[in-house]
């Protein structure tokens, strides 16, 4: 079995007196979609932000591609090849697709932008993801639908040769049909060999795309299981009670924040 691309061991994180993440073990494998589920306040977003370097961890170990690393800020994460896509689409409405994808990392030399090169790279990336719903890469982002915007945000992550893409509820702001188009893209990311983490509240979505499900309960990792081994009911139990049959944490009733 291939080594996990990203592995967290015994990660803890507190905000003042609030202990948000308790000894979290979490693995992300290349080519798999790992769904991160949990109730509100279970620590999903905090975990993702810790990996992305926005909230540096208090203790614990992060291993990336077999090597122990420390992530102290978003720049460290980006340098390793970790990209994050948020639900509230971090795109600029007044710029076109190419400008957005290269924002802050424009290509060019001698003070001139190499528009052709950037345009080609953007088009190539969209084609590699089989995105055929966007007509022109010079379309203004403001004229795109929610689903198309999310597509651009995700494609941006691929353009930078990321190895791990974290998606924090990428479909929360979308309608049913557009959600499905984005989920389709999420799976194609994994099929390209990237490690994908998907935060979602929607069990149907999770079962449609995820290879493995990691369930957080009050800041603890209740279970990490292959999707094909569990049912909807079991996952809902894990989310709400921290335990389902043999799965889950030993004494959920004693778990506190």
């Amino acid at each position, binding site marked *: 079995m291939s080594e996990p691309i990203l592995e967290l061991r015994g990660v803890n994180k507190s905000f003042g007196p609030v202990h948000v993440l308790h000894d979290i073990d979490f693995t992300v494998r*290349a080519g798999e979609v790992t769904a991160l589920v949990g109730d509100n306040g279970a620590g999903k977003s905090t975990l993702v932000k810790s990996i992305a370097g926005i909230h540096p961890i208090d203790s614990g170990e992060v291993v990336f591609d077999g090597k122990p690393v420390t992530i102290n800020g978003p720049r460290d994460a980006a340098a390793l090849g970790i990209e994050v896509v948020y639900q509230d689409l971090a795109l600029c409405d007044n710029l076109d697709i190419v400008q957005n994808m290269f924002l802050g990392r424009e290509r060019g030399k001698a003070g001139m932008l190499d528009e052709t090169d950037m345009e080609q790279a953007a088009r190539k990336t969209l084609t590699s993801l089989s995105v*055929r719903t966007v007509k022109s890469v010079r379309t203004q982002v403001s004229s795109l639908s929610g689903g198309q915007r999310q597509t651009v945000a995700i494609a941006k992550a691929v353009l930078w040769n990321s190895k791990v893409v974290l998606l924090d509820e990428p479909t929360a702001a979308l309608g049913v049909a557009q959600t499905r188009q984005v989920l389709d893209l999420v*799976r194609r990311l994994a099929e*390209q*060999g*990237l490690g994908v983490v998907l935060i979602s509240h929607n069990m149907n979505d999770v079962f449609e795309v995820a*290879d493995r499900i990691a369930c957080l309960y009050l800041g603890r990792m209740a279970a990490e299981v292959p999707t094909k081994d569990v049912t909807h009911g079991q996952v809902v139990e894990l989310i709400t009670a921290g335990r389902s049959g043999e799965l889950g944490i030993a004494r959920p009733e004693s778990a506190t924040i």
Partner: protein
Amino acid sequence: MATPTAGARPDEVRRHNRTALLRRLHVDGPSTRASLAAELGLNRSTIKALVDGLAESGVVAERLPAQRTGAGRPSLLVLPQPQAAVVMAIDVRVEQVAMAMVGLGGDILGRHSWNLHRRTREPGEVITHIADSAKLLADELDVTAVGVGVSVPGVVRRADGMVHEAPNLHWTDVALGARLTAVLQAPVHVGNDAELGALAEHLRGAARGSSDVVYISADVGIGGGVISSGTPLRGAGGYVGELGHMVVRPGGRHCYCGCQGCWETEIGEAALCRALALPEDAPRGAVVAELRSLAADPSSVSHRLGEFTEWLALGLVTVVNMLGPELVVLGDLFTALPQVVVDRVRATVQQRSLVSRAVGGTRIVSSPLGRDAKLIGAAELAFEPVLGLV
């Protein structure tokens, strides 16, 4: 259809020309009136009449070409309008189902896919999910599909879409065509996945302009599609194409088909996982990731994939000797194989196959369509009867 003894009436001729023109635009994309006239061998005024008729009903649009060549008034560019005729393509795989709405000219307007697990793989569940998703896609895009094409990894009767056996899906005698026609309320055509992959490569992929092509794809099992003299080779009932079940290793591993040592058992996804030291049920992405990392390290390729490469080449020597293609397209999971593997297979086949030597080396390439080949093929299957009616 007119019998050879009867003459063709003018309206039949006109309809035939109209369909030919539409097919040309659908497959090869926008084209000027002048080049349409040249390629179809029709008079310019005939082309004008046809294009005007199509433009009036909104099937095509005309505009001035952006780049002018030569002197004189530029010939108008004729563009197919995707919304004029939309079909639904469905690719049922072992691990997932992918769907897309495809417009005239081959544009994918919208798409969706989902994973299949134990229970959701049952025919009833799959059909229900397809019906739900079809409605969502149609509503979002505001289109109505005029035809449906379905790709299934199994033995399919073309006439009515009866799936006799799809072993990896655990389907036996599923009346997929009839059941989908009932829920989708549009004509449904069902085809074998590899055959449709071959069709897609022939029309829109690596095999454009090649008339003798073999398409070999690896999903979980191995399938083969054959284009011979420009048309699909179907066999009685349309059952041809189980190339993965030619026995290459007598006394080898047991195959679910009842034989031992089928080609599939040596080059299928499970065999690839064994070669890569992954568990046999590793997700597709993990296999691709491993192959990608291997491609970055060519020295270890022959060490880890040497035996696999040998089996792939061995089977292909037989395929090439038997069917004599000018081109072999490796599709689906095989598109992730490192380039050195494809190169080595090509060299081995040329060295060992009489036919390949005779034609000066059969070309063997990776599919540029990748995962989408069967989806695109399913769309073309649905388009075939539609083009005459638009």
